[in-house]
C-alpha cells in the first residue's frame, strides 16, 4: 500500500532508478568524458599533437591548401581555426559519397596523415546524447526519458531522505557495504544536487526542438524554415550558378566579421559552392570567451564580399544558448572544466551506489527465498558500471592497436573501433551474467579488467607514438599528460576497489561458513539454549 508521500516517492525513486539506472550511468559516464573530448581526441589522433603556433594563421593560406585537396565539384567545405584545445586546422568536405575529415598542420598547412578514428568528439560525445541510436531519433528520446527520470530521482531522493540536514556530511566508510553505499549515495546526491539537477535540466533544454516540437509548430504555424532562421540563423542557400567564380579574400572577410563582433575571433568558416560564381562564405563567432554557446554568424557573398545574411540570437535564444553553453562547456576555463569532470564522476558514483544499495538490501532475503531478482540486477549493474568502463577502455586500446588500413567486410577502421566498444560491452554483460553466482566475483574480475586495460592503454600509447609521460610533459602535450595520468589513476582506484571487494568476499565467505556450522537453536538441546 502506498500510504504516504514518502512511501510513494521511495517506490518511485527505487523503480525509476532501477529501470533507467543503466542508461543514466552510460550517459553520465560519457558526458563526464566529453568534458575532455578534444583532449581525448589528441590522445586518439597522435598526428594532431601539436603546439599552438603563436602567430596568426592566414585563412587565405588555409583556403589555398584546402582547394588543392578537395574535389572541384564539392558542394561545400569548412574548417575550424586552431585553438589551445585543438591546435590543428580541422577541415571537412563533402564529395558525392560522404563527409570527409582531414587535419592540417598549423605551421605548414599540409595534410597530416593519421589513422581513421571517430575519437571522443565523433563517438563518446554523440553517444552521451544519442546512444548512437539514430533511427527515428530513438537514442535522443531514450536519453530524454532517462534525463526526466533523473530529475524525478533527484527531487524524490531529497524528499525521502530522512535526515537530510543531520547526515549532511556523514560518510561511514568502515560500515558494511549497504550502509557505506547509502551514505555515499546521499552525500553525492545532496551535495551534488545543484549541479546534477541543472546539468540534467540543461541537457533537456538543449534538445527542446526534439522533445517539444509542438511548441515550435504552433508558434511558427508549422513553418520549420522560419523557426530555424529565427532561432539558429539558418539562411536560404544561393543555388550554384556559373562554375569558375573567384573567391574573395577570406582574411579580409575575417577582419570585417571580427570588427562587427567587437574583436571576438572567427573560429569556423564554411564555403558553399566553392568553385562557383554563387559561392557563399559563412563565418561563425568564437565560443571560448563567454558562457553562451553563441550562434552569431555572418554570411558573405563569396564573389563580391557583400554581407548576405547576419544573425544574432534574440533574447529567448540567448537565454537558451546560455543554458546550452553551461552544459556544453565549450568556453576556455580549465578550473571549471576540471570541476565539471569531478562533479560528473560524482554523478556516476551517485547512480552506481544506488544500484549497490538496491542489491545489498535485498541480497540476503532473496537468497533465502530463492529469488533470482537481486542476481539479475547485480548482473545488470556490473555490466552497466564496470562494463561500460571496460568497453570505453577497449575503445582506446583498439585505437592504438588497429593498423591504419584495418577493416572488416564493409566496416572501416573508425567504425571497427566502435564495434569493438559494443562487442566488449556485450561481453561484459555476458560475463556478469555468468560470474555473479558467487558474491562480488563479477565485480572483482571486471575491476581487474579495468586495471589491465588502463595500464595497457598507457603502454600502447607509449609504444605506438613514443610519447610516454615524461616525453609528453617535456613537449608540453598537456592533453596527453592528463589522459595518461587519468588512466593511471583509474587503474590505481580500480586496484584499490578490487582489493576491498576481495576482502569483502573473503569476509562474507567466512561468515557464511560460520552460519553453516553454527547449530540452529534447538538442534543441540541444552547446549544451544545455554
Amino acid at each position: 500500500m502506498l500510504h504516504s508521500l514518502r512511501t510513494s516517492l521511495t517506490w518511485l525513486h527505487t523503480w525509476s532508478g532501477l529501470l533507467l539506472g543503466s542508461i543514466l550511468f552510460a550517459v553520465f559516464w560519457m558526458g563526464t568524458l566529453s568534458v575532455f573530448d578534444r583532449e581525448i581526441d589528441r590522445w586518439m589522433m597522435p598526428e594532431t599533437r601539436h603546439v599552438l603556433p603563436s602567430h596568426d594563421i592566414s585563412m587565405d593560406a588555409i583556403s589555398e591548401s584546402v582547394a588543392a585537396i578537395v574535389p572541384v565539384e564539392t558542394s561545400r567545405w569548412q574548417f575550424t581555426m586552431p585553438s589551445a584545445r585543438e591546435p590543428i586546422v580541422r577541415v571537412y568536405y563533402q564529395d558525392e559519397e560522404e563527409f570527409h575529415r582531414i587535419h592540417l598542420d598549423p605551421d605548414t598547412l599540409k595534410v597530416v596523415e593519421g589513422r581513421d578514428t571517430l575519437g571522443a568528439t565523433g563517438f563518446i560525445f554523440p553517444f552521451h546524447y544519442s546512444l548512437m541510436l539514430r533511427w527515428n531519433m530513438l537514442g535522443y528520446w531514450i536519453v530524454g526519458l532517462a534525463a526526466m527520470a533523473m530529475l524525478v530521482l533527484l527531487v524524490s531522493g531529497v524528499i525521502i531522505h530522512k535526515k537530510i540536514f543531520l547526515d549532511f556530511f556523514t560518510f561511514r566508510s568502515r560500515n558494511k557495504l549497504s550502509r557505506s553505499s547509502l551514505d555515499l549515495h546521499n552525500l553525492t546526491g545532496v551535495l551534488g544536487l545543484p549541479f546534477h539537477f541543472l546539468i540534467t535540466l540543461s541537457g533537456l533544454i538543449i534538445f527542446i526542438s526534439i522533445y517539444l516540437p509542438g511548441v515550435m509548430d504552433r508558434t511558427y504555424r508549422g513553418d520549420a524554415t522560419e523557426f530555424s532562421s529565427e532561432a539558429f540563423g539558418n539562411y536560404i542557400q544561393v543555388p550554384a550558378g556559373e562554375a569558375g567564380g573567384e573567391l574573395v579574400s577570406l582574411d579580409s572577410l575575417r577582419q570585417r566579421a571580427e570588427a562587427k563582433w567587437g574583436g571576438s575571433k572567427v573560429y569556423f568558416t564554411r564555403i558553399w559552392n566553392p568553385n562557383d560564381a554563387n559561392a557563399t562564405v559563412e563565418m561563425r563567432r568564437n565560443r571560448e570567451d563567454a558562457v553562451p554557446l553563441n550562434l552569431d554568424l555572418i554570411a558573405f557573398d563569396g564573389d563580391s564580399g557583400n554581407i548576405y545574411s547576419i544573425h544574432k540570437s534574440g533574447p529567448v535564444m540567448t537565454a537558451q544558448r546560455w543554458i546550452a553553453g553551461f552544459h556544453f562547456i565549450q568556453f576556455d576555463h580549465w578550473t571549471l572544466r576540471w570541476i565539471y569532470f569531478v562533479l560528473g564522476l560524482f554523478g556516476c558514483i551517485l547512480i552506481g551506489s544506488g544500484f549497490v544499495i538496491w542489491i545489498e538490501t535485498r541480497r540476503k532475503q532473496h537468497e533465502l527465498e530463492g529469488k533470482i531478482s537481486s542476481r539479475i540486477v547485480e548482473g545488470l549493474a556490473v555490466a552497466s558500471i564496470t562494463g561500460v568502463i571496460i568497453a570505453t577502455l577497449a575503445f582506446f586500446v583498439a585505437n592504438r592497436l588497429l593498423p591504419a588500413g584495418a577493416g572488416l567486410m564493409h566496416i572501416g577502421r573508425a567504425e571497427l573501433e566502435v564495434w569493438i566498444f559494443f562487442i566488449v560491452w556485450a561481453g561484459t554483460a555476458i560475463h556478469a551474467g555468468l560470474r555473479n553466482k558467487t558474491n562480488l566475483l563479477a565485480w572483482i574480475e571486471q575491476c581487474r579488467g579495468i586495471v589491465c586495460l588502463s595500464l595497457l592503454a598507457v603502454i600502447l600509447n607509449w609504444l605506438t607514438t613514443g610519447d610516454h609521460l615524461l616525453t609528453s610533459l617535456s613537449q608540453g602535450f598537456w592533453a596527453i599528460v592528463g589522459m595518461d595520468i587519468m588512466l593511471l589513476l583509474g587503474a590505481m582506484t580500480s586496484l584499490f576497489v578490487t582489493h576491498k571487494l576481495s576482502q569483502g568476499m573473503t569476509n562474507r565467505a567466512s561468515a557464511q561458513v560460520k552460519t553453516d556450522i553454527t547449530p540452529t537453536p534447538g538442534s543441540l538441546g541444552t547446549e544451544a539454549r545455554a
Partner: protein
Amino acid sequence: MITLASFMIAFAGFTFIALTQNKPRKILCGGAGQGQSQKRWYRLIATTLLLLSLILIISNEGWSFGSIMWGTLITIAAMTVSMGLTFFTAPFRKLVRVTKL
C-alpha cells in the same frame, strides 16, 4: 589564486556548519556541548563566509562564469569537509583546535 581563496572560505563556511551538527562536532571536538546561541552564531558565520566566497568569485570571474564557478565550487568544498571528517580526522581535529572553534 582568488578561486583558491574562495574555495578555502567556502570550506571554512561548511566547517562551521559541520560544527553545529552532533556527529561532526563529536568527531572534531570530542563531544563538547554547544548552546543554542553558539549554534546560531556559527550558522551566521557560515552564511557570511559562503556569501563572501560568492562575492569574491563574482568580482573575479564576473556574473556568468562566477555563478557557475561558485555553484560548483561549494559542492566540492562541502565534499572536502565530509572527506576530511571521514579520512583525515586527526589533522581536521587539529585545525579546529588551533583555530579555537
